[in-house]
C-alpha cells in the first residue's frame, strides 16, 4: 500500500474556542488597510510611460524644485488598496438602503455601459457643435422626457446637483420678479419640514426665509400659509411629497393662492420618485422643480456624488433659465445656445422672450449623468415609470403597516404614506434613542434609515425602501427592525455600543471636530505637533 505521508488529513470541525488576536489585526476577510502614505513611496509608480525625449523648458523660471509628497503604488498594490477599502463600505449592491429622502434604488449596469461609450465619454465640451450632435441629442431627448413627465414648459439641464438645481430655480424666480419690476418681494416661505437646503438656497439668493407651520397630521398649514401671502412674498418652497412622506393635498389650492398674490411656487423634487408617471407637478401649479437624477432616475450616488439637478420650469419662468441650453429645430439639428447666440435664438425661435440669468457652470452640466438617466428612462418607458411610483409607494406602506404595532408612527392615522414611512423613538426605554436603533440595524446587515429628519418629528426615523426591493428583502428588513425596536423598548444595553460587527465601532466625532486632522502628516511632524 502507499501511505499518505503529507500529514494532511481531513478534519472534523470543532465548534467554540476563543480566537487569539491576529498578528495583522485582520479578521480573515475583514482586512485592515493602511493609508497610501504609509505603504507607498514617491519613487513607485503604477503607470509606464514611453521612454524618450522630454526636452524643452518653456516654464519660465517656475520649474518645481521641492518634493510634492505624493506616494505611488504599483498597479497590483493600487487595485488591492482600493478593493480592500471598498469592502469597508455598505452599498445598494449589498442590500437594502432605506435612507429616507435619498431614494437609494438599484443602479442598472446598462447605464454604466452606455455612459462609457466613447461617443459620450471621450468628447470635449468645446468641440464644434457639428461634431457632437449625438451628445446634444441626448441632452435634448432627456429634456423632452423630463418636461413631459412633469407637465412643465421648459427645463434647465446644467445644474450639477439637487441644491444647485434649487439655486437655479430660485434665481429664475428672482430674475422673473426683477423683470416684472417686483424685486422688492423679499420673503420666501418654507415649511418647517423642509430640507435644510431650501432655506440655505433662498438666503443665498438674498431672500429672507419665514417658516410655515405644519398641521398635526404632518402637512402644511394651508390657512396659515394663505394668511401670510402678500406683496412682499416672492415664493413658497414646498417639498411634495413632503419630508413626512405625505402628499400635500392642498398644493393646487396653495399654488393658485400664491399666483394670485403674485408669487411663484418652487417644488423640491427630491421625492419625485413617489409620483413619477402618475402625477405631473405642472398640473399642480408648480413653477420650478429640480429633479435629482441621482435619486429618481437612478444615476449612482457614488459615495457622495456626482449628482445632477435639472430644473423643470413653468412658462412664466422658462425664459430666465441658465445658459447654455439646447434647442432642436425642425430640421432635426440640435443647437447649443451659449452667450453669443442667446439673443439671436430668442428672436428667431422664441419671440424674443428668452432672458437668461446667466451661466451656472463652465460647460453643459452632467453629461455622464444624462446618458445614464436617459438609458434608465428609456428602459422603463411611461408604463414602467408609473409602476416605479406605484411599487415605491406600495413598499413604503407595507413597511409602515408592518411595523406600526412596535414603533411609534406619528402620521399613520393620517392615511397612506407615499414612498417613505416615518417612525419615531417614542416608547423606547429611557436613555435610548433613534441612533441606537440605527446602529443596531448596521449589525443586522442593513444601512440605517435617515435619522432625526425631518426635524418636526422628535427622534425621527425616515424609511424609504424604494421600488427595487423585493418582498423577501422587505420582510427581512421588517423583521430586523422589529427585533431592534423591541430591544430598544426593553432597554437592551448592548444597543448603546452597537455596531459590534462593523469594520469600526462608533467613532468619536467630538474629537474629530475639536482637533481637526484633515490631512495625513508624516509621523515626525505629528510628534512635534503633540509637544
Amino acid at each position, binding site marked *: 500500500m502507499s501511505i499518505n505521508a503529507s500529514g494532511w488529513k481531513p478534519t472534523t470541525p470543532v465548534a467554540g474556542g476563543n480566537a487569539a488576536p491576529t498578528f495583522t489585526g485582520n479578521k480573515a476577510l475583514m482586512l485592515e488597510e493602511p493609508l497610501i502614505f504609509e505603504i507607498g513611496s514617491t519613487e513607485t509608480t503604477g503607470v509606464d510611460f514611453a521612454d524618450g525625449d522630454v526636452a524643452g523648458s518653456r516654464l519660465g523660471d517656475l520649474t518645481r524644485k521641492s518634493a510634492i509628497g505624493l506616494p505611488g503604488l504599483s498597479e497590483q498594490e493600487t487595485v488591492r488598496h482600493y478593493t480592500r477599502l471598498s469592502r469597508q463600505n455598505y452599498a445598494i449592491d449589498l442590500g437594502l438602503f432605506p435612507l429616507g429622502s435619498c431614494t437609494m434604488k438599484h443602479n442598472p449596469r446598462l447605464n454604466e455601459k452606455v455612459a462609457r461609450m466613447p461617443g459620450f465619454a471621450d468628447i470635449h465640451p468645446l468641440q464644434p457643435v457639428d461634431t457632437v450632435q449625438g451628445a446634444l441629442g441626448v441632452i435634448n431627448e432627456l429634456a423632452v422626457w423630463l418636461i413631459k413627465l412633469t407637465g412643465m414648459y421648459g427645463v434647465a439641464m446644467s445644474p450639477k446637483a439637487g441644491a444647485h438645481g434649487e439655486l437655479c430655480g430660485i434665481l429664475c424666480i428672482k430674475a422673473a420678479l426683477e423683470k416684472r419690476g417686483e424685486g422688492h418681494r423679499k420673503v420666501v416661505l418654507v415649511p418647517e419640514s423642509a430640507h435644510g437646503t431650501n432655506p440655505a438656497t433662498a438666503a443665498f439668493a438674498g431672500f429672507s426665509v419665514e417658516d410655515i407651520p405644519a398641521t398635526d397630521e404632518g402637512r402644511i398649514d394651508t390657512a396659515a400659509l394663505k394668511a401670510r401671502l402678500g406683496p412682499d412674498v416672492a415664493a413658497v418652497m414646498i417639498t411634495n411629497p413632503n419630508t413626512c412622506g405625505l402628499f400635500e393635498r392642498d398644493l393646487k389650492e396653495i399654488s393658485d393662492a400664491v399666483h394670485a398674490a403674485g408669487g411663484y411656487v418652487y417644488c423640491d423634487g427630491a421625492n419625485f420618485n413617489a409620483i413619477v408617471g402618475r402625477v405631473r407637478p405642472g398640473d399642480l401649479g408648480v413653477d420650478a422643480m429640480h429633479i435629482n437624477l441621482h435619486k429618481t432616475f437612478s444615476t449612482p450616488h457614488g459615495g457622495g456624488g456626482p449628482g445632477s439637478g435639472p430644473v423643470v420650469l413653468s412658462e412664466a419662468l422658462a425664459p430666465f433659465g441658465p445658459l447654455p441650453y439646447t434647442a432642436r429645430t425642425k430640421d432635426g439639428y440640435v443647437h447649443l445656445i451659449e452667450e453669443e447666440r442667446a439673443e439671436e435664438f430668442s428672436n428667431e425661435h422664441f419671440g424674443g422672450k428668452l432672458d437668461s440669468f446667466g451661466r451656472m457652470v463652465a460647460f453643459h452640466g452632467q453629461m455622464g449623468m444624462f446618458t445614464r438617466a436617459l438609458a434608465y428612462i428609456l428602459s422603463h418607458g411611461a408604463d414602467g415609470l408609473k409602476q416605479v411610483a406605484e411599487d415605491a409607494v406600495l413598499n413604503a406602506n407595507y413597511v409602515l403597516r408592518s411595523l406600526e404595532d412596535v414603533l411609534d408612527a406619528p402620521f399613520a392615522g393620517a392615511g397612506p404614506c407615499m414612498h417613505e414611512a416615518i417612525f419615531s423613538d417614542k416608547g423606547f426605554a429611557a436613555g435610548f434613542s433613534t441612533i441606537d436603533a440605527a446602529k443596531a440595524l448596521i449589525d443586522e446587515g442593513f444601512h440605517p434609515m435617515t435619522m432625526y429628519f425631518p426635524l418636526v418629528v422628535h427622534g425621527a426615523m425616515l424609511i424609504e425602501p424604494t421600488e427595487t426591493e423585493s418582498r423577501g428583502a422587505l420582510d427581512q428588513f421588517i423583521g430586523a427592525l422589529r427585533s431592534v425596536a423591541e430591544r430598544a423598548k426593553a432597554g437592551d444595553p448592548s444597543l448603546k455600543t452597537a455596531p459590534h460587527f462593523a469594520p469600526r465601532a462608533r467613532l468619536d*466625532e*467630538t474629537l474629530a*471636530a*475639536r482637533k481637526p486632522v484633515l490631512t495625513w502628516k508624516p509621523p515626525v511632524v505629528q510628534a512635534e505637533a503633540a509637544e
Partner: protein
Amino acid sequence: MSRYFTEDHEWIDVDGDTGTVGISDYAQSQLGDIVFVEVPDAGRALGKGDEAAVVESVKAASDVYSPVSGNVLEGNPALTDEPALVNSDPEGEGWFFKITLSDASELDALMDETAYAAFVAKL
C-alpha cells in the same frame, strides 16, 4: 456683583459698568460636547439681542445673543484652543466675552438666578 439670565440661556455678571457674558449650565448640557466657539472681537459694538458669538457642537451651531447693549472689551481667548471649557465650567472659566454696558436699565428685563431656575424647570 450680580448675575442675570436671559430666556435664550445667556448669563451676564455685572460689575460696575462691565459685564461678563456666557451660556448657562442648562444650555451647555442641551448642546452636548462643544467643539468650537467664535467670540466677538474687542471693540465691536453690540445691541441688546444682537448675534454676538457662535457655539458649535458636532451636530448643531447656535448663536449667542448679547444680553445687553455695549462695546466688547474682549472675547475669551481660552475658548479658541479649549472649547470644552464651556462644558466643564460654563458659568466660570467658560465665559464668552466682556462688555461695557451702555444702558444698565436693560438689566431690569432679565431674570435673576431664582427666576431662571424656575424658567428652566418648566422647559
